């Protein structure tokens, strides 16, 4: 019997970055097959190739034994391949039935919509999945878990024989995940091939027959579930030798904690998170997507309200109402998404760089001196831009990210919170951003860095605290070299203890 899906020497590059190189493996009919790997290992790209979202540069994709060229998602559907996305792709303004059939509506003559038939078929599908919602229910009124299940229904509506799921439980609660697994088990019994991408090894072991590991865009190996343990999988995911740890410790952290959070809670995202950061200390907050790390940082600076717990800055108990309030107390958050949260593309670099400091100091007048100050920032952090009058849109991603970091560092914060400070930037820029953070720490700022880039944290942080599913799961310190390893941290972040 031909394999359900077969990847042969698949290669794909985005610009200079090779996302996938020479990936070859097969997924048998009717099996459930996991694809695991660290962030950036190429899992999502592989799925996008499978459903026609991306075309490979090299290699061949075979579905049911036939070599295929998929141009759009519709081609993949025609071959019986469906995808449940990580993000909730749904039309919240439309009904459940309309979502299930969106783009593939059943139509009669002249494109007349056959609503009744779609509603009936949606009802059958939803019953089959044990989802107790009406086909007419508006999707915006549904809980997140049901939206995820609607995607499953959508895939099944097009007679899908191979269903790929990309981190489907990232935003589900434990009970909702259980329900999804029950449904997936049912599909498996009916002979549907499942391709399951997840960070959560416990789920992978529960659901899948075989596990393929990708690392840095390359195929590592495929294991049978019964022949391997979680530790071996983690080792295969991490695999590489660590880059040498940069010589840190310009100053030794010490003294009273400058930042202390105590049992900070914001349900349902995270609960009972306690971390202290000394002056001059860099603490990593590691967690995979959906672990709650971003929410912890946003709650500290007042973008979200805590349900409970205490925040202490320099010995004083504080509750910040807004990032402005926090910034005035010397606590700043450098946000994750530079496009959406970091930069003003309508304003030039000088305005971008000066804004947070000016707002925090309560400035009334735009000072002439800021031109010089902004130029100095560009020079100091080696930001490549034609001048301070250029707009951020003209800069490369790495330089944009440096601008984002520089604008908040220009305030000389005492407590520096960073969320994924080097997401999507090249190695050179990454290195320089690390330099900026170390420089701040050497001036005795307390730095807390949330990241899902483990080698980065291991190279940068004095300690790493690990979050999984909204809770702290452990801590490793650089002073304990035996424990300060990728395997150890990844195990804390992925496996239920």
């Amino acid at each position: 019997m031909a394999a359900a899906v077969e990847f042969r020497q698949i290669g794909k590059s985005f610009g200079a970055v090779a996302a996938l190189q020479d990936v070859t493996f097969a997924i048998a009919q009717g099996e459930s097959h996991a694809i695991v790997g660290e962030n950036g290992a190429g899992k999502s790209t592989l799925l996008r190739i499978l459903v026609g979202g991306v075309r490979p540069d090299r290699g061949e994709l075979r579905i049911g034994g036939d070599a295929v060229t998929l141009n759009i998602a519709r081609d993949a559907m025609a071959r019986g391949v469906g995808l449940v996305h990580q993000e909730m792709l749904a039309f919240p303004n439309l009904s459940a039935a309309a979502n299930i059939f969106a783009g593939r509506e059943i139509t009669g003559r002249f494109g007349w919509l056959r609503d009744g038939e779609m509603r009936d078929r949606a009802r059958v599908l939803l019953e089959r999945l044990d989802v107790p919602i009406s086909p007419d229910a508006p999707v915006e009124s549904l809980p997140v878990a049901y939206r995820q299940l609607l995607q499953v229904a959508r895939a099944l509506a097009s007679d899908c024989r191979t269903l790929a799921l990309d981190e489907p439980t990232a935003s589900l609660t434990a009970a909702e995940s259980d329900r999804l697994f029950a449904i997936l088990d049912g599909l498996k019994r009916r002979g549907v091939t499942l391709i399951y991408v997840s960070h959560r090894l416990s789920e992978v072991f529960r659901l899948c027959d075989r596990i393929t590991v990708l690392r840095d865009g390359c195929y590592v190996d495929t294991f049978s579930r019964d022949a391997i343990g979680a530790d071996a999988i983690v080792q295969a995911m991490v695999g590489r030798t660590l880059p040498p740890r940069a010589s840190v410790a310009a100053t030794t952290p010490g003294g009273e904690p400058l930042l202390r959070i105590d049992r900070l809670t914001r349900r349902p995202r995270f609960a009972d998170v306690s971390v202290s950061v000394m002056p001059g200390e860099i603490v990593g907050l590691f967690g995979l997507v959906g672990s709650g790390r971003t929410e912890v940082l946003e709650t500290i600076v007042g973008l979200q309200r805590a349900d409970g717990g205490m925040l202490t800055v320099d010995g004083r108990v504080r509750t910040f109402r807004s990032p402005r309030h926090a910034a005035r107390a010397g606590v700043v958050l450098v946000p994750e998404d530079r496009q959406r949260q970091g930069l003003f593309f309508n304003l030039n670099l000088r305005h971008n760089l000066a804004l947070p400091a000016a707002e925090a100091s309560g400035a009334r007048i735009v000072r002439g001196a800021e031109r010089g100050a902004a130029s100095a920032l560009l020079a100091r952090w080696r930001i490549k831009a034609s001048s301070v009058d250029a707009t951020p849109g003209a800069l490369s991603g790495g330089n944009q990210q440096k601008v984002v970091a520089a604008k908040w560092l220009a305030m000389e914060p005492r407590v520096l919170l960073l969320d994924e400070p080097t997401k999507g930037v090249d190695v050179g820029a990454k290195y320089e951003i690390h330099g900026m953070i170390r420089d701040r720490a050497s001036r005795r700022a307390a730095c807390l860095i949330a990241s899902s880039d483990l080698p980065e944290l291991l190279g940068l942080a004095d300690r790493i605290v690990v979050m999984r599913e909204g809770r702290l799961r452990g801590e490793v310190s650089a002073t304990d070299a035996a424990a300060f390893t990728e395997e150890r941290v990844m195990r804390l972040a992925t496996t239920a203890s």
Partner: protein
Amino acid sequence: MTRWWEGRELSTVAILAIEIAFFAWYLWPPANRTHPFVNAANAVLILKYSSIYGIAAIGAAMVIIAGGIDLSPGAVIALSGVVTGGLFVGSGWSLTASALAGFLTGAGCGLVTAALVVAVGLPPFIATLGVMGIARGAGFIITEGRYFDVSSRLPADWRPLGLPIDWTSPLLMIGLAFVFQTLMIRMQWGRAVFAVGGNETAARYSGVRVGLVKASVYLAAAMLAAVSGIALTIVQGQGKADLAMGYELDIIASAVVGGASLAGGRGSVVGAVLGALIFGVLRNALPQIPGATFYDRLIVGLVVIVIVVMDQVLQRRKRVDS
């Protein structure tokens, strides 16, 4: 230091200059007759009527730069004019006191808009549509269809601040344009307005008081509309509820032609005033062209589209260059 004049205002000046040159040439009179378009009296006339739009367009530009939209200035102009005229003529208040009451009425409309947009969270289009209806309706309720004959109570040779009355509103427009351009370019407040319009999320992360900035912009816009309404009542000599009907769209068009982007984050107060002048010249000159009477609205519409398309093409080219 930021240049007080940006490149975009210069191109609006150029458009205005070309427009004036065109009409000067097209309407060139036979020998020995005064030019019907290029003469001092006509210039004052254009300035006088443009300033009604221009003063309100300063506010519209700021609202648009902050990423909002304001449909209420026409109605606020009428209501503040009605209140001023009603108190001045009907209740025998002094002109200063009536004008102050008219101004405060307009400011009140701005506070309502600000509350609806910032506190209630209504989309600005809806909030200002509602305020537009309320302000216009209040004007009709106050006047009950009458109009207040302000001109009869004004002294015949009245010279406010020692200036000819026709000069006051143009000078007011120029002064206010200067003040608000300075606020927008040289003050942290103005920079926050640009930041909120460009990226509201990033503004919040950067410590900008987003709600306060938005509220202040709607309040300022309503105050400017009120000033414009008082000026219009005095210029026209009457307070009437159906004054300034449909002005809101001309006011928004002035701001847009002056470089404001409805996507927010881009625009200029001086540009908006220049935009109002571009339309003022069109409205003055077109009726003087024989046979063009029925074409003037059509031409005004075409001009808006042509200027904005030109601007977008230039923007795109600039982006490619950099």
